[in-house]
């Protein structure tokens, strides 16, 4: 007897509830593979147009044609969650995907990083991104493609340069307010409420000094430019803030990928195992798909220079659940992101069991396995994830003549910026800032240098 997906989904959900998964309602939709491919490229079902997505899209197409990539599922956390299944996948594959999605939904409902981000962006990012896209389409109609594109060039290039420790809505730094610093917001505010953190004395005596803007290095470039640019038009500001809001949504997804995928993989395998309503054949076929997803990139006698996050997360969660039980695992799911997850729970024994190692690749092409020290391994895994995957560039100073001084905090990154690319990004910024722009970083010998748009002369 043929079973139907729509009949099976409620059964899987009932089972999930019995096992204690908590989540906002999930809306499933069956879509063609082409749609999935675009979602993977844009990150959201409907998103603003930009030529750079076109480049990623063609790469995806090429990979897909060569059979290297196959996308099973996408879910957008929110209330409701929106999940997409590929309509050409088999029932066995899709039932696994449904169970996997419920694991994600539980994760995003409970993990604090997600909860905070969802509170900020309002649980309906899919609809909001579509509204952004519509608004931008109208602006293009009105103002013309080229000018809108110039703004998107900057905004999207600065996408990772946000500061989610601070709220989405922030008030502008005011130069007139010389006496008192603004009340600290976000993390700083919370930090000051900790017991034992005495309020530093406010400097109110002496001659008032003009307030340095920003009062401390500002990481949120999108916000700073949108709110402080001397001559930005409203529609340009709207685009910046739209990109920023989407970035606020993307960041926890990025920061919790290993945990989140591992958690979802653990739950899809457990849900299917306990689903006595599934026929034996469906179970066997789904589990085959499962092992395809969570298997290491390297085969038995091979070596891979990448780690499959599904495999890593899944193995780690299995280990934690075996040794600490479900309640302890739920606590970890609530409180950690990948950084804490890996550093606190990924042990040397497990690394050894999984065959993980650190390698170093020299410019001459030599690749050598260097060490299996667990701390080095942690950092090697986490390195691409720091600061949303981007170098940390901050606003150092907004000068009284409107000059914007940016500084690369190279101390954290250990090396300087790629100068050619940095110059191009500065040129993007220059077109919207409409005043001089300057960026400090270090060269290959560690000397401080500054970069300017190529058309600016000393």
């Amino acid at each position, binding site marked *: 007897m043929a079973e139907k997906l729509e009949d099976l*989904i409620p059964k899987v959900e009932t089972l999930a509830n019995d096992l204690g998964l908590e989540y906002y309602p999930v809306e499933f939709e069956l879509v063609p593979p082409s749609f999935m491919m675009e979602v993977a490229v844009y990150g959201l079902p409907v998103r603003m147009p930009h030529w*750079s997505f076109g480049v990623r899209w063609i790469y995806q197409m090429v990979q897909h044609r060569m059979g290297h990539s196959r996308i099973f599922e996408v879910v957008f956390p929110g209330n409701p969650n929106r999940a997409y299944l590929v309509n050409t996948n088999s029932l066995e594959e899709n039932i696994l995907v449904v169970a996997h999605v419920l694991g994600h939904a539980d994760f995003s409902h409970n993990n604090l990083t997600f909860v905070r981000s969802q509170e900020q962006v309002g649980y309906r990012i899919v609809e909001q991104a579509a509204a952004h896209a519509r608004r931008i389409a109208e602006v293009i109609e009105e103002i013309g493609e080229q000018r809108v594109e110039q703004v998107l060039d900057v905004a999207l290039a600065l996408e990772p340069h946000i500061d989610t420790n601070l709220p989405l809505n922030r008030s502008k730094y005011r130069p007139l307010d010389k006496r008192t610093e603004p009340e600290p917001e976000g993390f700083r505010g919370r930090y000051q409420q900790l017991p034992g953190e005495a309020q530093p004395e406010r400097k109110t005596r002496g001659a008032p000094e003009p307030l340095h803007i920003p009062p401390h290095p500002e990481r949120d470039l999108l916000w700073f430019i949108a709110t402080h640019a001397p001559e930005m038009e409203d529609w340009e500001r709207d685009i910046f803030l739209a990109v920023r809001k989407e970035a606020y949504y993307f960041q926890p997804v990025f920061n919790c990928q290993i945990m989140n995928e591992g958690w979802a993989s653990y739950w899809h395998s457990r849900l299917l195992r306990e689903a006595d309503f599934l026929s034996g054949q469906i179970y066997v076929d789904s589990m085959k798909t499962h092992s395809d997803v969570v298997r290491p990139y*390297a085969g038995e006698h091979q070596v891979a220079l990448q780690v499959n996050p599904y495999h890593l997360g899944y193995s780690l969660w299995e280990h934690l659940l075996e040794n600490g039980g479900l309640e302890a695992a739920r606590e970890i799911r609530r409180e950690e992101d990948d950084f804490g997850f890996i550093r606190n729970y990924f042990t040397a024994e497990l690394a050894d069991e999984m*065959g993980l190692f650190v390698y170093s690749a020299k410019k*001459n092409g030599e690749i050598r396995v260097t060490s299996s020290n667990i701390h080095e391994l942690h950092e090697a895994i986490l390195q691409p994830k720091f600061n949303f995957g981007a170098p940390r560039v901050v606003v150092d100073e907004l000068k009284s003549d409107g000059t914007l001084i940016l500084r690369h905090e190279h101390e954290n990154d250990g090396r300087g910026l790629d100068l050619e690319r940095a110059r191009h990004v500065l040129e993007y910024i220059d077109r919207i800032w409409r005043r001089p722009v300057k960026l400090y970083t270090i060269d290959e010998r560690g000397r401080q240098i500054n970069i300017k748009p190529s058309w600016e002369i000393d």
Partner: protein
Amino acid sequence: MSLHESTSRDGVGRWYDLFSRGTRDWLRHNEKIREAVREQLPDLVAGSDVLSRPDNRTVKVPVRFMEHYRFRLRNPDVRTGAGQGKAKPGDVLRPAQPARPGQGKEGSGEGEGQITFALEFQIDDILDWLWDELELPHLKPRLGTRIEEDAYIREGWDRRGARSRLDRRRTMKEAIKRRSAQGPEAIPIVNDDLRFRQLARRRRPTTNAVAFFLLDVSSSMDEHCRRLAKTFFFWALQGVRRQFSTIEIVFIAHTVEAWEFEEENFFRIHGQGGTKSSTAVHKAQQILEERYDPAMYNCYLFYATDGHNFSEDRRRATEALLRLAPLMNFLGYAEVSHQNHRRLDTEVAGIWRGLGAEGWPVGSYSLTREADIWLAIKAFFTDQAAEAEAQ
């Protein structure tokens, strides 16, 4: 929970079946590339493969993906990463690669920018860019001095005429006007509503043209020379084609004799022995007289050679050219060779210089490298535009 299917029951697809955002943004990327490539016109023009399919009105140009720049760290001297598999500290997974000549500064960066793909360009677009670049006047189809033909053109309407020239749109308009004046009982269409297009006979300048391509195929003309000649011919032809609705091309190859060829074979011919350029000019003259009435055609002649010619042929070649020149709108001479900085001081170049000195519309161009093609094309278009304006 709920599950939606991507197609509703009445078979109407969802929005994403109708429209691909990926394609839209990819096309926009390509458009931007076109704008960027335009700035490299000289390379585009000198591309030696433009002629591969002469009937095709497009050329393919390899381009790289554009990169959307973001802040990135400089590539480290030693990159570390996490890997997985059967390996222990000290294992060398890949030995150092011997430095390969011709490789970039530091191998390759990751990600975009590496893959090249071929983008097709309309030759007409390239020509438009060329014209803009050279700031040439946009020529109308050239008004021949003597070249005219009869043409019927549409002019006005009448209430009587042949059925085949009934203008339905006008007729309906008339009927509607009348009906709205007459009120609801009016007859739909009456004879008075009918409108017929009228034709008038006009004299108009002919827009026919013929181009003669003369190629020296003697043993001294090697592949390099032929390629230069071919590219030059191609662009010269495009420049002429811009002004005429129809253009016919005659291909003539010569050594001490001259033959007419089909286009496919023209550039593959290899001859033996010496060179008598007079033979090719004679052949052109003969074909012109047989097939193309100079009164009905705009005539162009292009000659590519390495410049060597038997000196006893000098007088005959000069005379032949002098006979042909009055019938031509323009004559182009392309000297192809290996030596840099050739100054057009060969035997043949001298003959053509003489032709120019007598006031005939002649241009001479020297080509030794691909980079010269751009200069030659620029010079040719400028000369040609000046000639056409003067006439």
